[in-house]
């Protein structure tokens, strides 16, 4: 049973409440890498193991201590603890500063949470589906009868305004003689145009080129008005007009107040009230807002295409929140906002990320540097993802403005990928083991770790332990070989053996071949496709270049997977996206080493020539 004095439970509760009441889904993205309860849990577990060690060396069992603490909070022998009781709260607010050793902190894990470290796989524990119902706590809905009565009343009042005529009533011939009056029709009106054209031949001459018919000098109001408003003035966003909720009948609609950030000062402060079909996607809502803006303020601002804008969450005092914009592809019914802001799409939303893996608390608020960083990150993804493409792109001299636009749009698209990248996903593929054996595994990739789990139905080989690797140890992911349907996917990670920084990384039982990237014979890099995949020799350290070039003594190993091209690309993009966003040192080192090595190889080849 958890109590309110249990910090771990509280943390967990606060987190879950945030997630369950946030109808945007953004909070998940933001908090994904910051699972504090789990962070503490991990620390707690390491603490317990050290305590286990203590116990083995004759100390009091920690279970007993815990129970004692729970049941008797103010026993004399916990006097020191009570003085530290306030400590965890303080240290919860700035989580990285003054981290006291965990066994000193009065911290108990909520049962269930400490059962498994893989609890993020089990979505049920997170209560994502819990919804708050607005009537709870507010006022309850009126009864059905009251509503029905009101509806009837409204209908009655409406009906009273509508005059009703009986269609089948008796025929009542008109009593007035002049009711039906024969109107004389122009005797020969067909000839009239010809005479008028004859008289107006002079004016007609110029007009003939324009029109060979109906040219007797009449002009309709429509022609006049059309002449006044050339087609260019037709609203460019008119295709989005059909999402206007007020223009449809009997379809669910949604009312949103939208601040239009591009408008000049006085107008900008007042929201545009729009009514949109619930089925409209966010991009269509943007289009509708643009449409309404151009109607309401025709001269205020020259809007660009809808791709340039995004909807941001907003307080009702029009302060734009620093969250990523709403996803263009989502239906607007998913979101429950009353106020939003339409603004120029920012290159990357400033996400405040707290990085736990490093020793110091580093809150990176990406604001002005964000644009540069994001652009670089995305470029890197493209380059890493498809080297030839990148090379071709630079080779073409992609400096034309069109290329810039394309690049920009590509970046916008990637933006969504980047948001989705840290989401947990699993893939079924086969790992290539011992250089030729394949076995089916589940690879799960999330913003925190990658895990490889062997399938239960593996027949011939002994069941192996699942491997879990923190994302910080993963360096790179690439497709090394691609055939028509199959692809060989390689995930590079830091080899465990080299440094003690890896804490919870299980040593790889899947016997991935370990290789140093500085290996002289591994020079063909990505293009290298050995007949039997995973055929990287482990004797590389003997290479003379190995010693010279390895400035830092980080060694890398890799897992090879066999899967279809699509999945391989998905995993590669996702993983590299995560890695780019984390901008880990391991990755930088890996890529750095690779470039150096390629340069060396180049130099060596030239030397040979």
């Amino acid at each position: 049973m958890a109590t309110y004095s249990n910090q771990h439970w509280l943390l967990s509760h606060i987190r879950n409440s945030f997630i369950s009441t946030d109808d945007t889904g953004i909070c998940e993205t933001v908090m994904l890498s910051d699972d504090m309860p789990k962070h503490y849990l991990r620390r707690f577990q390491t603490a317990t193991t050290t305590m286990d060690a203590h116990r083995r060396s004759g100390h009091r069992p920690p279970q007993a201590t815990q129970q004692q603490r729970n049941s008797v909070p103010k026993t004399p022998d916990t006097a020191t603890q009570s003085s530290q009781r306030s400590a965890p709260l303080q240290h919860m607010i700035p989580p990285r500063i003054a981290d006291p050793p965990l066994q000193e902190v009065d911290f108990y894990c909520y049962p269930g949470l400490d059962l498994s470290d893989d609890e993020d796989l089990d979505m049920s524990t997170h209560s994502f589906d819990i919804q708050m119902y607005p009537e709870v706590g507010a006022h309850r809905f009126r009864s059905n009868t009251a509503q029905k009565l009101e509806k009837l009343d409204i209908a009655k009042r409406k009906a009273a305004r509508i005059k009703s005529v009986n269609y089948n009533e008796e025929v009542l011939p008109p009593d007035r003689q002049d009711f039906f009056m024969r109107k004389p029709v122009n005797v020969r009106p067909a000839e009239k145009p010809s005479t008028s054209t004859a008289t107006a031949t002079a004016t007609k001459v110029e007009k003939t080129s324009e029109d060979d018919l109906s040219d007797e000098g009449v002009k309709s109001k429509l022609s006049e008005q059309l002449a006044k408003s050339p087609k260019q003035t037709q609203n460019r966003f008119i295709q989005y007009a059909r999402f206007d909720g007020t223009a449809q009948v009997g379809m669910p609609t949604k009312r949103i107040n939208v601040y239009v950030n591009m408008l000049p000062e006085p107008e900008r402060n007042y929201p545009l009230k729009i009514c949109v079909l619930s089925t409209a996607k966010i991009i269509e809502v943007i289009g509708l807002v643009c449409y309404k803006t151009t109607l309401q303020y025709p001269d205020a601002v020259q809007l660009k295409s809808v791709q340039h804008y995004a909807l941001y969450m907003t307080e009702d005092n029009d302060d734009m929140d620093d969250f990523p914009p709403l996803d263009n592809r989502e239906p607007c019914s998913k979101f429950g906002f009353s106020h939003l802001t339409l603004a120029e799409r920012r290159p990357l939303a400033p996400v405040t990320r707290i990085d736990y893996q490093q020793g110091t608390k580093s809150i990176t608020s990406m604001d002005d540097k964000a644009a540069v960083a994001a652009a670089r990150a995305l470029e890197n993804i493209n380059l890493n993802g498809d080297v030839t493409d990148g090379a071709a792109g630079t080779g073409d001299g992609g400096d034309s403005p069109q290329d810039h636009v394309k690049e920009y749009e590509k970046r916008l698209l990637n933006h969504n990928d980047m948001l989705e990248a840290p989401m947990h996903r699993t893939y079924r593929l086969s790992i290539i083991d011992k250089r030729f054996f394949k076995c089916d595994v589940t690879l799960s990739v999330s913003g925190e770790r990658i895990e490889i789990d062997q399938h239960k139905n593996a027949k011939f080989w002994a069941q192996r332990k699942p491997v879990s690797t923190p994302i910080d140890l993963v360096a790179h992911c690439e497709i090394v070989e691609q055939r028509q349907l199959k692809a060989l996917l390689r995930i590079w990670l830091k080899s465990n053996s080299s440094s003690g920084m890896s804490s919870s990384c299980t040593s790889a039982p899947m016997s991935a071949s370990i290789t140093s990237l500085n290996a002289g014979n591994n020079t063909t890099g990505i293009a290298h496709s050995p007949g039997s995949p995973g055929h990287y020799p482990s004797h590389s350290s003997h290479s003379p270049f190995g010693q010279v070039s390895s400035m830092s003594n980080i060694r890398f190993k890799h897992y090879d997977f066999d899967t279809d091209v699509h999945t391989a690309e998905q995993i590669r993009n996702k993983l590299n996206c995560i890695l780019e966003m984390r901008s880990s040192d391991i990755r930088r080192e890996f890529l750095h080493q690779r470039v150096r090595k390629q340069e060396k190889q180049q130099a060596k080849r030239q030397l040979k020539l």
Partner: protein
Amino acid sequence: MEATEDQLILATGGYDHTIKVWQAHTGNCIKTMRFVETSQVNALDRTPDKTRLAACGYQCIRLYDLESNCTAPVINFDGVQKNVTRLGFQEEGKWMFTAGEDHRVRIWDMISAPPHCSRVFDCQAPVNAACLHPNQVEIAMGSQNGGVYLWDVKSEEHEQLVPEMDASIQDVAISPDGHYMAAANNKGNCYIWQLSINPHQKLSIICPKKKIQAHSRSILRCKFSPDSRLLVTTSGDGTACIWKTDDFTKWRELSIENYWVWDAAFSADSKWLFTASSDGIARLWKLYTKALARDYTGHSKAITALSFKDEIVAD
């Protein structure tokens, strides 16, 4: 954005049970009115004073006020049976005619309040179309059994013609100069008669003039241009054809491929044509160049009727 005096409006209605009012020259939708949930809009017409819009459909006839913001009708007809296929107003708005699949064409006195029925004509078959002669007393009608009628509402005389057996007349039209009467059927044929004035103030004299094999599929509408020099036929074959009335040769063909063209309307100078089609888009064409000048998008289903009232401005 109110429907001001100065503004030309286009009204459209269709299978999505709504009637939309558009600013004709910009293509912006000004107003959407709820029609009957169970019915499409078969025909639309505006009162001559332009303040009201009449719409008919399955088991309903409704009049809407265009000047108020209210989207509910101001007049509703009760007890309507079957489809009401056409309606229209006498040029001063004194009376309105309705044609229905109950075999009857009715004349409604719109001066008295509430409106009441002052004449009925029985066509013996569902009436698909009706059209008022510019002399304001004769009504042309077309029925599903192929009959074309000309009825004098004042003297209650009538004449019946059957141009083609086993074909249903889909629409009838009389040219604004009173010269021609056209009837289009579901076989794609259009029949033209010449009308001449009866010296005794009686029903016009009808004289067959021409048969045009206009379309490969059913014709849905035919209409003469305000200057009586053009005739448009719209069809289920995805085209609207414009014929010259001096020799009834085809002048222009507007194509909306794969969609039915349900209705059309000319501008007052006969230079522009609006079309309503089953892709849910109303279009404005410049006839001379066949260029598409505007489109009016917003309906979620086929548009089956439109109404446009233009006026001549002094040159």
